[in-house]
């Protein structure tokens, strides 16, 4: 399974570039590239629905992030390098990798999933729901309450963003109207 490894390595390189570049515009664009690689990886992993959703979401989040950084700080200011947070970050990341490595070895081998729950869905999904696409059969029928809950989370997040960004009701006296 080398092609998925190659895509994952490209994603690693892309995320390192995205984290370390000083120019904010190229940083955001490289994050978009990482997301598009993930869409490609979903296609390779035989998840076409996820690939489509990832493509749309990636473009939308690129637009949102561009909206923020445009006409603001074009690049990170050149401050003197602060080594303490960098050291803490590297240590934490290495610790996370160290702890996660034995757990990943305990899991079933890549390419041989257990599929104890999914066997039921695969055998009866078509008869029970009439949907040929098993992914939509699972999200809209077998686990519809899950989807309802996640829709609530989505609604809450959108409401929060709209409330934070709204203009009316935030004006104080003497404060000039600022552009969002």
């Amino acid at each position: 399974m080398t092609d998925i490894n190659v895509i994952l390595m490209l994603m690693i390189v892309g995320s390192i570039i995205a984290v370390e570049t000083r120019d904010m515009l190229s940083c955001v664009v490289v994050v978009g590239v990482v997301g598009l690689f993930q869409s490609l990886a979903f296609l390779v992993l035989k998840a076409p629905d996820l690939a489509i959703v990832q493509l749309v979401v990636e473009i939308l989040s690129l637009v949102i992030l561009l909206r923020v950084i445009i006409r603001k700080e074009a690049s990170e200011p050149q401050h003197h390098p602060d080594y303490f947070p960098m050291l803490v970050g590297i240590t934490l990341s290495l610790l996370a990798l160290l702890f996660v490595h034995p757990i990943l070895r305990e899991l079933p081998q890549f390419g041989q999933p257990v599929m104890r729950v999914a066997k039921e869905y695969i055998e009866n999904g078509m008869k029970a729901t009439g949907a040929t696409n098993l992914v939509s059969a699972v999200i809209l029928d077998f686990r519809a309450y899950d989807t309802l809950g996640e829709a609530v989370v989505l609604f809450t997040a959108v409401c929060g963003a709209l409330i934070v960004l709204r203009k009316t009701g935030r004006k104080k006296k003497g404060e000039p109207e600022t552009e969002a």
Partner: protein
Amino acid sequence: MTYFLCMIIFAIGLYAVVAKRNMIKIIIGIMVMEYALNMLFVLFGYRQGGRSPILEKAQTITNIVDPLPQALILTAIVIGLATTALMVALAVRIYEKYGTFDITKIRKLRG
């Protein structure tokens, strides 16, 4: 090996969240961690030489990949977009108030 490469992406995102001072970089770190976790779930469900989980009426197909992680991740991706939008909205508000994205300069409260 494949799982571990995925977790390296997660570690890079964790490093960005912990070590960076720019708020946009922190948001990007969280996005990278989201990518890694979504990818990890789909990797768990992959079967060697499997087919996409779309059946046909006439024939019975046995070697398809696990549809359950894909169904869970499908909504998680969209929620990731919504939470990113929420974080970006907060960052925009903080920028309007303090004029910077640097988290070390916005410690003092200005009510």
